[in-house]
């Protein structure tokens, strides 16, 4: 009785705290939507005279056609190259050269695609011509002018990233420099010029080699995800396969750009030392006149149910690594919250079930983690990743994981386990607000993939209502051999 009442007290406490946090964030986030559809989320925080500004475009690699694989990511790089006024000494003189480069590059690609029948002399001529034109165009380029302007004004962490779900541009600026951000970003949204395209393609190929080809874990990740999806573009690598990258063109990139990189597909989060009314006025002034583009259409294809285990082996010059994935729905489906609970039960901390069993007791693995991937807009995978400890094998680790997954189907989660998870989520809610950038990231991410940043507020209440029966039901439904993909590295 005593123990029980203690838990009731704790639960009550944590609910009121959850409400307090929810109200705190709800009170502090200010939303504003421009007429052209652009969504602006603001949180004033005056800890330091700095601002994090994130722009998320709701278009990512799942939105590419099969001849566009890698395009969203390459375009992310290309949007660093300037506009009709920035990054160039003379766009009018530069433009005809850019068009000649494009025509030559397309001829070169067409010739290369003849493979064995390609004309060697013609290839050499086109290579030479492309080099010549690129050198000629280089004369007009003001190198990395966005980065230059941001840097000299104290910008920090200027970067961008592309995922299955979207593309994000981020910068931290001293709070007196917000007009610079508005001027650059509105110009980028409206007037981007994809100069230096075919040189940047080489950079992206090096990025691919660095992250996937020459990195054993990267290679496992890419192969495992690609094998797990037969139909849905969630399976295709965001960076594209090497031959995808080689056959992208500036023409394709511009088509993609002009269709989707528009205010109606954009979400901004501005967190830090701001006045929301002034920020709205600034954003209206610089972005208000930009016309909307095409809404990103939903990806129609659905991943057919899997009918048997898939196994992906990567033989490489590295020690074994293991990934196990199960297809599952994505947020905000009710079962996705149950997976969040399962994730924490299995791998969050030294007391988690898989850590205790695999790392501490059986000592089969040195680490184990779980997460949802590769994207969140469409059904994804619940993935368990473990690092076997020699002399133990991948299959020993695999069996031990399956035993724990079976336990989830039959042994109910305890009230104390659930309470621990809620306490952990409460801590995470606060710690994610410790930096302007962390909060801006979460606001843009959840506004884009869950439909509203309020997901951040509601998540813990939803988790609190999950029952031990929910966990057993979900474990039984999804943790099956038929629904499973397994990837592993075998040392050469």
């Amino acid at each position, binding site marked *: 009785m005593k123990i029980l009442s203690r838990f009731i007290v704790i639960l009550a406490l944590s609910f009121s705290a959850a409400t307090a946090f929810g109200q705190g964030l709800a009170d502090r986030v200010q939303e504003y939507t421009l007429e052209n559809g652009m969504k602006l989320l603001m949180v004033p*925080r005056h*800890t*330091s*005279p*700095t601002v994090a500004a994130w722009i998320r475009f709701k278009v990512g690699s799942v939105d590419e056609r099969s001849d566009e694989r890698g395009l969203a990511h390459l375009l992310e790089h290309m949007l660093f190259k300037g*506009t*009709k*006024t*920035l990054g160039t000494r003379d*766009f*009018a*003189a530069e433009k005809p050269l850019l068009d000649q480069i494009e025509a030559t590059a397309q001829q070169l690609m067409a010739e290369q695609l003849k493979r064995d029948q390609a004309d060697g002399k013609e290839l050499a001529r086109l290579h030479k011509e492309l080099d010549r034109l690129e050198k000629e165009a280089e004369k007009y380029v003001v*190198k*990395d002018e966005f*980065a*230059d*302007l941001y*840097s*000299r*004004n*104290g910008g920090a962490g*200027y970067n961008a990233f592309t995922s299955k779900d979207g593309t994000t541009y981020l910068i*931290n600026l*001293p709070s*007196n*420099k917000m*007009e*610079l951000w508005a*001027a650059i970003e*509105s*110009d980028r949204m*409206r*007037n981007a010029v994809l100069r*230096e395209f075919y040189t940047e393609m080489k*950079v992206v190929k*090096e990025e691919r*080699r*660095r992250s996937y*080809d*020459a990195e054993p874990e990267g290679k496992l990740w890419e192969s495992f995800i690609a094998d797990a999806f037969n139909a849905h573009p969630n399976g295709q690598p965001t960076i594209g396969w090497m031959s995808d990258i080689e056959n992208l063109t500036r023409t394709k990139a511009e088509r993609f750009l002009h269709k989707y990189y528009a205010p109606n597909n954009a979400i901004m989060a501005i967190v830090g030392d701001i006045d929301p009314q002034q920020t709205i006025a600034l954003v209206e*002034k*610089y972005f208000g006149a930009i016309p909307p583009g095409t809404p990103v259409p939903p990806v129609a294809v659905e991943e057919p149910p899997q009918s048997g285990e898939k196994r992906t082996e990567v033989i490489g*010059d590295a*020690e074994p690594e293991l990934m196990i994935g199960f297809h599952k729905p994505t947020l905000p489906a009710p079962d996705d919250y149950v997976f969040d609970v399962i994730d924490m039960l299995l791998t969050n*901390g*030294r007391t988690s079930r898989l850590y205790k069993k695999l790392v501490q007791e059986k000592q089969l693995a*040195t680490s184990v983690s779980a997460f949802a991937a590769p994207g969140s807009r469409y059904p994804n995978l619940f993935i368990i990743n473990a690092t076997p400890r*020699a002399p133990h094998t991948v299959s020993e680790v695999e069996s031990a994981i399956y035993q724990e997954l079976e336990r989830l189907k039959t042994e109910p989660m305890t009230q*104390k386990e659930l*309470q*621990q998870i809620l*306490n*952990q989520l409460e*801590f995470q809610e*606060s*710690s994610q*607000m*410790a*930096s*302007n950038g962390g909060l801006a990231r979460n606001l843009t991410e959840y506004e884009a993939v869950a439909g509203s940043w309020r997901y951040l507020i509601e998540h813990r209440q939803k988790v609190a209502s999950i029952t031990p029966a929910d966990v057993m039901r979900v474990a039984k439904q999804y943790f099956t051999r038929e629904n499973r993909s397994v990837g592993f590295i075998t040392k050469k």
Partner: protein
Amino acid sequence: MKCMKRLFLTIGALGLMTGCASTQVATTTGSPAALENADPRTMTFPPLTFRIPRSERVQLKNGMVVYLLQDHELPIVNLTAYLNAGSIYDPADKVGIASLTGASLRSGGTKATSPDKMDRELEFMASSLESSIGADHANVSLATLTRNLDRTLALFAELMTRPAFDQARVELARMQAIEAIRRQNDDPKAIASRELSRAIYPDHPLSRIPTLASVRAITRDDMIAFQERYFYPANTILAVSGDFDREKLLKNLETLFAGWPNRAASFPAVPEPKEDASAAVLHVQKEVNQSVIRMGHLGIDKSNPDLHAIKVMDYILGGGFTSRLTQEIRSNQGLAYNVDSYFDPGRRFKGPFMAETETKSESTVKAATLLRSIIAGMTLAEVSEKELKLAKDSIINSFIFGFARSDAVVNQQARLEFYGYPAGYLENYRDNIARVTRADVLRVARKYLHPDAMKLVVVGDEKKFDAPLSVFGSVREITLDQVK
């Protein structure tokens, strides 16, 4: 729409640009200002008010120093202890003892609280308590919701003063360390960085790495002795930030650490790294389609009088998107995704200067040659006024980001004392940067960059290189030990 700039630059563009030009006004000071967008190239800004935030320094009765900065925005508290200990003090036959002690300290529980109980209690509260020991410092840190501060702080104090080094947890940490040694040759980038460090610091504690034999030789008693030797109040600085009550926290710290005895300082002598003007070329064979290139030599420590000029030079040569290395190797030639260089100003000893990139096997020698020649270029002529201004503006204007979080502020101030930075280091930093001239940059480039005395490490598939590495000098082949 920003077409005005074009009109100034080239009248020839006028025909193409009239549509734009009609909506653009050259300056934004006149009315109707609301409709005019300013040019980022010429934009001016209101002044920024910024004052370096200060934390409070308090010394406890037992000699422990505490830096405090309250911040009640979020209901969390962060605390980090810094202790002078580290792998630089590892005995040669027990390399790895510092890092193994760091891992086992937290996981091994305390004399009052078993490891399992400690794990359960902390995780239920959503508090974290972690320990680690690096090259030149030990950290024990906690993060907690405010409501659990008292209990978490009590467990922190137990761990600092009465760790148990539970035998089973010690063995677990040892097995993890052995597995890490088995995996140390999986990632080509990690191999290259390790081998460069060994080449720059031959036979020095800064480059030694644990082996199976050294890790197996470390006993639980060794760890207990290690902890006792270095963990005492006068060797500890705490940094605390967040939602705490100052009076209560200090009172708790006085009580929790009241009986903790001080010890006589006893730190093994560590030799200064040797200056070595010889170049070297090292190759590690890996069958990959991209080579990892690392090069460098011994650099400077934090007290170097030329530190600020070196920071400016660093920025121009290898810092960020606008650096010479990135502009040429990445942006102009498309040879790499990642390329940079930097002086790491050592806190206790001279740190390294390092340059790094990765490029496809077929352009290995081309990229390495270019990297070296761009570094050498810094010693040949003064940088441009534009480069100098960009570097200085960037460093000075982004200075405030070191103070954007209260936990960063308090930890930074604790580290300044911990490593003995000169008084006024932060306060004078921007002025010192502002004073750097083009002549200074050339002078420090000539004094501190040694393009002909670099250790070059390449990890890659030599059959596919564009030229043999011997173009750089006599090549020493490094064979990776297969650890069973």
